[in-house]
């Protein structure tokens, strides 16, 4: 009963979605299920595992951001939602309907009415004017011309480009083209909007501006956005929920705050923002607390891990301090090897005896620092996150 109630709030539900690229994916799938790694499967069968057993729930009306490096499977993942890519195995339910059970005709109807997509390379039709591009989805659906016009104008106004209606696509700038692509997707009033690195082709300043607009538009229309990006700042700025992908698998999934402050794995910790990893070994484990012995000292941190396990501690640069403070313990003295001014802060790398990788830390705006300077370092174990993966 309870579960059913939850289901109705779900826009997308994926279970065990696996995609293997190659001529005979089924046999490669068996190897994967038998416990072989992706690298082994690729070496043995020359099949590439694009997605490995991905399960996720996307609530209705959310901005759900899929993050990962190129080749991590994030674009492959969202193309499963509208079946531009067919999975090798798994289950995909969108708005209560099993997408994989649809016939070709049902799939077309679904793509026309329920799910729209915005692409990194825009995919606009260069032989049509702006207005005819935006009307495309409605035209494909068979909406009469008189009815299309007001809806197209509304969509163009929403992205602030009403005045370009009669222009040709090649007369528009990159940012304008992406807005047209967005208008073209929104005009069909989909229940799910897929955005495949929509801001990837734009320059940084425009990207920051567009991400704000995207968020505002999403608030207005209330459509579920599934947004793919490799830009972690963009992800944090717009996401309700972030999923971090690595080599076809989900590394971490949660709110931006949770992923940044409590990353689930070394990969997620390093991927989301700047981070220091201090490798160590658990020497003592009791209820909810573990003692980790590292080259920089012993730390008592929150978490669960077996005694003897090799773990890592994640420590964000802003949690390293040259001054002592409440609850902070000394990590030793280090030599500044690099320093840069970032406007709001100075970022520097500090080499510490006994730790091979220099630690990154942030110093206040007014604190001048020179390479070669010696700095004492302190950190609060409460800021350290225990990583077992």
């Amino acid at each position, binding site marked *: 009963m309870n579960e059913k109630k939850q289901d109705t709030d779900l826009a997308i539900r994926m279970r065990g979605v696996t995609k293997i690229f190659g001529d005979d994916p089924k046999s490669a799938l068996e190897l994967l299920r038998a416990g072989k790694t992706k690298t082994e499967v690729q070496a043995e069968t020359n099949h590439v595992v694009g997605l490995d057993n991905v399960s996720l729930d996307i609530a209705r009306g959310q901005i759900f951001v899929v993050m990962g490096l190129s080749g991590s499977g994030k674009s492959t993942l969202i193309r499963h939602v*509208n079946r*531009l890519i067919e999975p090798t195995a798994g289950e995909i339910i969108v708005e209560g309907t099993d997408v994989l059970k649809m016939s070709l005709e049902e*799939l*077309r*109807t*679904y*793509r*026309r*009415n329920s799910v*729209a*997509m915005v*692409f990194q*390379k*825009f*995919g*606009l*039709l*260069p*032989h049509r004017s702006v207005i005819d591009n935006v009307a*495309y*989805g409605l035209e*494909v*659906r068979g909406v009469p011309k008189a009815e299309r016009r007001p809806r197209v104008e509304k969509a163009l106004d929403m992205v602030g480009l009403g005045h370009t209606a009669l222009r*040709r*696509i*090649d007369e528009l700038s990159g940012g304008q083209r992406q807005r047209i*692509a967005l208008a073209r997707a929104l005009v*069909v009033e989909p229940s799910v909007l*897929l955005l495949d690195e929509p801001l990837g082709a734009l320059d940084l300043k425009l990207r920051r501006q567009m991400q704000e607009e995207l968020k505002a538009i999403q608030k207005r229309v209330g459509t579920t956005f599934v947004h793919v990006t490799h830009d972690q700042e963009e992800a944090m700025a717009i996401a309700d929920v972030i999923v971090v992908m690595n080599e076809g698998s989900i590394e971490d999934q949660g709110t931006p705050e949770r992923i940044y402050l409590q990353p689930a794995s070394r990969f997620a910790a390093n991927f989301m923002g700047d981070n220091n990893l201090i490798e160590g070994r658990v020497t003592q484990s009791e209820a909810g607390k573990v003692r980790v012995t590292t080259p920089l000292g012993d730390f008592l941190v929150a978490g669960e891990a077996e005694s003897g396990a090799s773990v890592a501690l994640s420590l964000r640069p802003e949690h390293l301090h040259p001054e002592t403070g409440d609850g902070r313990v000394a990590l030793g003295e280090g030599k500044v090897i690099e320093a840069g001014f970032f406007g709001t802060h100075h970022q520097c790398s500090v080499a510490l005896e006994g730790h091979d990788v220099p630690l990154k830390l942030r110093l206040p705006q007014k604190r001048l620092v020179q390479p070669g300077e010696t700095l004492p370092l302190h950190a609060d174990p409460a800021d350290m996150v225990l990583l077992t993966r």
Partner: protein
Amino acid sequence: MFPEIIDTRPWRRAIDDSLNWVVRNWGDEFEAAAYPLLMLLNFIEDVLIATPWWLIMAILVSIAWLATRRWQLPVIVLVSLLFLGIMELWEDAMTTMALMIAATLTAIIFSIPLGVWMSRSGKVRQVITPLLDLMQTMPSFVYLIPTVMIFGPGKIPALIATIVYAAPPLVRLTDLGLRSVDPAVMEASRAFGTTPSQRLFGVQIPLSLPTILAGVNQTTMMALAMVVIASMIGAGGLGYQVLQGIGRLEVSRGLFAGLGIVVLAIVFDRITQSFGKQLQAKIGLAETR
């Protein structure tokens, strides 16, 4: 001498006999099947000859204007056509033009669907490509002889030979054009729930039209290249004048008729090319940049 491994005479005899059998038993049917082609050719020829020369000039000059919106090409076209008239080649030129137009139209009807089919299936392409190579490299006399045997000398074998020779570039360029449409645009179109025919007619063909038009241009040029050979089997026109010039050792007759063919080629080449450029500009092709 290469040693005789097997006796090939029975094969030759079998091929010759079967052709004779076809001519004897199916000649009429073949002729009936090709009748629409003959009708088309005759119709175009009649219209071109019946139309007053100045009207044809006016039409071609305005097409040249529409294709470029500049004065250069219309002037070139006008001078070219005046040359044909002054050299007393007008009627022959119309006959040749009719053959070229009929061959190009027929080639378009067959080649574009074939190109579409090729672009969708690698297997089809594997079969058709060598066939197209064969059509372009096989000396035309080789298939002219059997077609003349089946249809008798006249316009039909001339037209068929011209089509066989002139159609391949259009098939190839249609296939190439359709396949080179930006995959991002095709994927976006799929994502909107289009049917394959909505994608073909709404996206692929419009976007590959410049390439297809380049194919049409090639086809017209190759059709003109065939006119002398076609006239050997009764197509008439400028090719026949060239042939007569050679036969009578009248260099001037051959030269002027030959120049007439060149002039026609220039007119049609420039006009179709300009339309191609215009289309290319219209599509912008800026989408990928």
